[in-house]
């Protein structure tokens, strides 16, 4: 049985196993307690367990005396924006993002629309563990209202950030795979506002995920076929809740998820040289691009909350992660695949460049990723042991998040996942052979028992 994962991104697990309605009720009541019974937004993606978890969350929040605005099925970034214009004290997104169908999770958002930072997540966890919740009386208990369609407001905010008229004039042909997730309600509409001819795939929020909701080449075959058949200018692949974005070029080639940030950074730095904020696990290509274009890179631990805070701290012009999550600060300080789409299409419209050409000039490194399942109680010990081995070998490393060892051929990053009980290994080198060697090097030094 896969264990429950409680961490800085919230709590996630497999429904029918560890992710029980009681857990969702208690976490929601803990969050309501943490926010002192204020106004909380709730949204969800299209997973079949969504309504069950939603009821549990509503019960927990109502019991803590919260007032609830339920946005229904809607992308997480839409809810994060709505926290501000609905003047909420926070929000709960019921979505397991890129995890498979049977998973679900609660992601906690604070009053400024950003995820809780690690200290805040700890405080919430403390309340949960102590089990001392606010309990509203019959006079104090409030209710939940449904907010129908928060999408137009999101699109309004997006429009302010991009040259919409220029994009509309170009009538770009855009293929999009919404994975039958929450973006089904946002992306096709946003693309229409941008005047695109939309070739939408898997945009039925009532249908099951057609493939794993993680935008990477392995899940983009259908999209590639559509791009080719429809002679599209570009193809976009979504995860289940609108944070990550994958790209397919006009030639129908699926790009690695690392390329989304590479492309976005390249585009951004051409017109706004400045600081790109990313994490230590993301491709070195970002640094090459930044030095070419006159920008610089700040690297944080893995996790959206660090990107947001990094952007604030360094006045960054763009944020993102190698997983495909992009933050365009002028929209809001969180990953938003719709904002990334705006940025990319604006560039295509303004320059008439083709994605396939752009990608030619971007440094393409070989990245390999490998996950090792570890018992939860061993997770950090395994990491410590790897660190000890690396130290023994006299290698220098970056401990921002786990252990990242940089070597002449490339780098290897070993860290504990925020969302599952696994050790993630990511290696990068100039070419595949070397990357494979680096991966072997790392795997040989990891002992799980």
């Amino acid at each position: 049985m896969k264990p429950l994962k409680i961490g800085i991104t919230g709590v996630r697990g497999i429904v029918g196993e560890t992710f029980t309605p009681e857990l969702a009720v208690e976490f929601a009541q803990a969050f309501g307690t943490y926010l002192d019974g204020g106004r909380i937004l709730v949204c969800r993606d299209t997973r079949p367990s969504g309504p069950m978890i939603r009821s549990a969350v509503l019960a927990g929040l109502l019991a803590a005396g919260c007032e609830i605005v339920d946005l229904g099925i809607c992308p997480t970034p839409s809810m994060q924006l709505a926290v501000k214009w609905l003047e909420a004290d926070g929000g709960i997104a019921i979505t397991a993002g890129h995890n498979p169908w049977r998973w679900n999770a609660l992601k906690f958002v604070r009053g400024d629309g950003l995820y809780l930072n690690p200290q805040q997540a700890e405080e919430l966890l403390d309340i949960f563990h102590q089990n001392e919740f606010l309990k509203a009386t019959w006079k104090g208990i409030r209710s939940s209202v449904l907010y129908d369609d928060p999408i137009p407001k999101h699109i309004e905010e997006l429009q302010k950030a991009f040259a919409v008229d220029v994009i509309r004039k170009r009538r770009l042909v855009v293929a999009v795979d919404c994975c039958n997730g929450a973006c089904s309600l946002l992306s096709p509409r946003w693309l229409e506002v941008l005047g695109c001819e939309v070739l939408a795939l898997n945009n039925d929020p009532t249908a099951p995920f057609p493939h794993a909701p993680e935008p990477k080449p392995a899940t983009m075959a259908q999209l590639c076929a559509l791009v080719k058949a429809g002679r599209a200018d570009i193809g976009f692949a979504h995860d289940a809740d609108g944070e990550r974005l994958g790209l397919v070029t006009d030639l129908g080639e699926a790009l690695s998820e690392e390329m989304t940030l590479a492309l976005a950074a390249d585009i951004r730095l051409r017109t706004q040289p400045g600081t790109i904020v990313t994490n230590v696990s993301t491709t070195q290509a970002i640094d090459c691009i930044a030095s070419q274009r006159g920008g610089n890179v700040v690297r944080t631990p893995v996790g959206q909350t660090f990107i947001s805070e990094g952007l604030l701290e360094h006045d960054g012009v763009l944020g993102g992660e190698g997983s495909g999550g992009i933050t365009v600060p002028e929209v809001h300080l969180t990953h938003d695949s719709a904002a990334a789409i705006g940025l990319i299409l604006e560039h295509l419209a303004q320059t008439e460049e083709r994605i396939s050409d752009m990608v030619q000039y971007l440094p393409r490194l070989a990245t390999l990723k490998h996950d090792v399942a570890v018992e939860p109680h061993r997770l950090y010990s395994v990491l410590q042991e790897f660190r000890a081995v690396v130290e023994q070998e006299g290698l220098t490393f970056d401990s921002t998040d786990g252990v990242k060892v940089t070597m002449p051929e490339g780098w290897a990053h070993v860290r504990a996942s925020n969302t599952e009980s696994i050790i993630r290994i990511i290696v990068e080198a100039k070419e595949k052979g070397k990357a494979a060697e680096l991966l072997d090097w790392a795997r040989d030094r990891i002992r799980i028992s």
Partner: protein
Amino acid sequence: MRGVIGQSLTPVLLTRFAQAFGTHTGSGTIVVGRDPRTSGEMVKHAVIAGILSSGGRVVDVGVCPVPTVQLQVRRRKAHGGIAITASHNPAEWNALKFIGSNGLFLDSGQARELLDIYHQGEYTKVSGEEIRSVEEVEGAGDAHVKAVIDTLGPLPSAGKKLKVVLDSCNGAGSIVGPKLLEALGADVIPINVTPDGSFPRPAEPLPENLGDLCAAVKKHGADVGFAQDMDADRLAIVNEKGIPIGEDYTLVLAALYVLGHERGPVVANLSTTSALEDVAKKFDCPLFLTKIGEVNVTDKMQQQNAVIGGEGNGGVIYPRINFARDSLVGMALVLHLLAESGKTVSQLLEQFPRYTVVKEKMACPSEKIPAILKMLRHEYGEFPLDTRDGVKVTLPEGWFLVRGSNTEPIIRVVAESRSESQAREIVSRIYARVASCIH
């Protein structure tokens, strides 16, 4: 399963109970309805989460009377139902009432099974892919009204329209009660029909709580006043003079109408007024008395194919429409009786001897009760005795019943006689005797 919001009634507890129920009913379709209490929405969501998690499907009928939920369970051939209501308990309470697939509340065996599942904590947990859905149904109240009108028809249009004051206590009958009365063709004056969770009066429709209703009946010159409780299962009646007739007499009037149209067995409990017996005798129909408790009454009704039944607390059960205590059915039967007979409520009751029921209770540890009952059986051995539920003694001047409670450490003394003074005398005599045994 009941408790106080903000204290013992927590969403975690509720979700677990709902999972236990979902497990118990084999992941079937469960109808969920609630009264207007402010905590109802929270409880409903906790219940839905639990049912869905255990593989069940939910039909959410919204705010509606308990008998409406029961009717829906049977109509839809659902596997069960949950009514979220604490009946006449004050506003800070709420509770879950579990309904079986036959539309009746769980009997003690089923309730025990449910508790076992709850205590063991081993609930069915389906995977994300197998989770089913929630269907929201808006017309359950209308369907209930239709069921009543389809069976009994509207009131005869000849003659003057009956004027009715309805006090729904801002409860679950607030919307559907007036709708039913209008559908019947009565002239409705509604009071306390705002289902916002506020309690305009104590919810139990006892005479002492019906002051506003009585005043309204007098002010408007109404033919009758009806009072519902929070979950609209019980019905109390105020006559055309603005005087409450007593909760025992709701069933008496209902039986008077029903037996006048269809002969058959009548069922009530041991604590019911002798007036019911008089009505049954008038129509030559057998009367069966059972132990106190709705489940006992409905069991006997099923067994005997009874045409009407209920308890002395204002609960009317008319199987032709709904096998449940149903205030809507009660109102319809009584209004039809008034229209058909052309008589007033007082005139209708005048044809029978008038009895007075006096009820008392006192604190008593449960272990002392057997000895007290044994003493009474011994001392009143020469009189007709019924010992199925405590001790009921039939005296020349009336009867008295002494029994413990399943839910509280008390002992109840009830007596009935033709004259109020005599009823009070019996009660004080027995009360003193019982008290002497306790101390």
